[in-house]
């Protein structure tokens, strides 16, 4: 638990992970608590995407451990992680373009029982009213902002305790990004879900974030060095 008494949802300890045995992440330590939005900032190739995919289980762990709600999930298959409580909205949205909005949401609920899928679609529809009006529309024909909302909504279908959102502002108008962050705040306001948002430096939404982490060359910068790193990044950013 943190100082506010919120339970730990995700704990990453001394994580080394990468592709084909080559480490991309080095000794990463992260802790996320229920009810907080944590922004993970880094430049292209810094390791944000690899970290999120390692937590999802599609990049192998070389050393270290990942704990979700106290369980060591380091060697679990992705479907088991999803059913235990991780939702992931990947970079580029990756909605199923040839399926309708409703079908996308149903796929997001694959690990749920059939009886609960419909209820959860209604719940997610309340969170994203714009999607509720477009249930029968093909996802590929939605606007970029609507597709981003669909990607987050799809990740919410299993009632996750950890929601990971990768580059939600990519290619979207500021007003749309604002709406997405409002929804993320609404999600964490219940105090049960932790949200990890990976963004580029210039896209950071400081107001919406409870904490900011910086990753550089596969290493998460300790809080003590954070101020100097973000200042340097701000100078580099356009």
């Amino acid at each position, binding site marked *: 638990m943190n100082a506010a008494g919120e339970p730990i949802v995700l704990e990453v300890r001394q994580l080394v992970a990468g592709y084909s045995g080559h480490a991309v992440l080095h000794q990463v330590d992260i802790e996320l608590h229920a009810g907080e939005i944590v922004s993970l900032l880094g430049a292209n190739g810094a390791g944000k995407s690899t970290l999120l995919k390692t937590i*999802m289980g*599609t990049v192998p762990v070389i050393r270290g451990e990942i704990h979700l709600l106290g369980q060591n999930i380091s060697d679990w*298959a*992705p*479907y088991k992680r*999803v*059913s235990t409580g991780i939702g*992931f909205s*990947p970079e580029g949205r*990756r*909605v*199923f*373009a*040839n*399926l309708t909005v409703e*079908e*996308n949401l*149903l*796929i*997001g609920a*694959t*690990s749920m029982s*059939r009886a609960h899928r419909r209820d959860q679609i209604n719940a997610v529809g309340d969170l994203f009213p714009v999607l509720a009006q477009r249930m029968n529309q*093909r996802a590929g024909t939605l606007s970029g902002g609507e597709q981003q909302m669909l990607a987050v909504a*799809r990740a919410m*279908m*299993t009632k996750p305790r950890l929601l990971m959102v990768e580059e939600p502002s990519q290619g979207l108008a500021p007003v749309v990004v604002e709406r997405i962050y409002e929804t993320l705040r609404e999600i964490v306001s219940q105090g049960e879900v932790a949200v990890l948002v990976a963004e580029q430096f210039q896209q950071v939404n400081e107001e919406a974030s409870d904490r900011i982490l910086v990753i550089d060359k596969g290493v998460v910068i300790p809080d003590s060095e954070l101020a100097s790193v973000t200042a340097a990044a701000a100078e580099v950013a356009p």
Partner: protein
Amino acid sequence: MHFDLFFTVLLAGGISAGLYGFLPISLILTYRISRTIAFVHGGIAALGAILYWIFSLHNDFLPNYIITFSQAQDPKTFGHRPKWEPFPSMLAVVAIGAILAGTYGFIVMSRQLASLTVLTLTIVSLGAMMGMVGVSSLMNVDANVFPDSPFGSGRHKLLPESMTSHQPLLITNNQIFTFLTVVGLSLVLAVFLTRTHTGLVIRALADDQEAGVWCGVKLRAVGTLVYGVSGAIAALAGVLTSITVGANPADMLVFLLDGLAIAIVGGLRSLPLSLIGALLYGLTETALKVGFFGEVSLPVQAVVLYGALLSIIVVVARLRRDTFFLLERQSL
């Protein structure tokens, strides 16, 4: 042109299209989830044809100790391995096809292998096919001896004699069953893919496999199921082909190439378009064989057939942005 053969071509071509519809169904199903061309189904079809021949015909092919054992079980079959009836033989072959393909799917859809490149997986599939064709060839069956059909040997006049000035057109039970099965299979698959959650998952994986995994889809389980079903269909194609043209593994490779070309008509995604391709292929082949266009030599027949298929593929590709895409969007 011999227009008096028009109805003959239409009916016989339509029915023979059934045989060409099976392998494209298998290829499309597996392409949807793996993005690779499952050449392995050609091997399963070849093995299916040979196994059906062995199961359903008396022969001395198997090693002596098996024959001796069989004789002990059934003394009436002295000198031969006891044959099974055609229908259970067909069911056994279909089950073996499903098991072989399911096992292959279980292996290639594992987390480690599914992330390999499409080219690598296609070559693995080619290797599996060549292995199975090799095993089939080792069995050295007599391709000139055709096994019986599981649906009886009946022949039916399809057209009244007044509608054709040539020999009356006879259609076998096997051809009718083949046609009905491919139509029935397509309908069942259409319902399965559009009305069940597993069907929805298969369509989602066709769009984006990795995103499906992030949504909690059990890729290996779905892959094993799809490969198993498509392997059963490929084995059935082998059985029906062995009854029609004989159990020759080399013929089965040509049959696979026909099926692949037909599947490409549907962009390897659309079952309805592929079945239309199979129909056009069956009609063209029948028209050439019965002399609708006059006397045409075998090599010219092959050139015309593949030329026609290529033309269809080019036309479909040109229409892809609107009509074809629309069909693909609603593809079964």
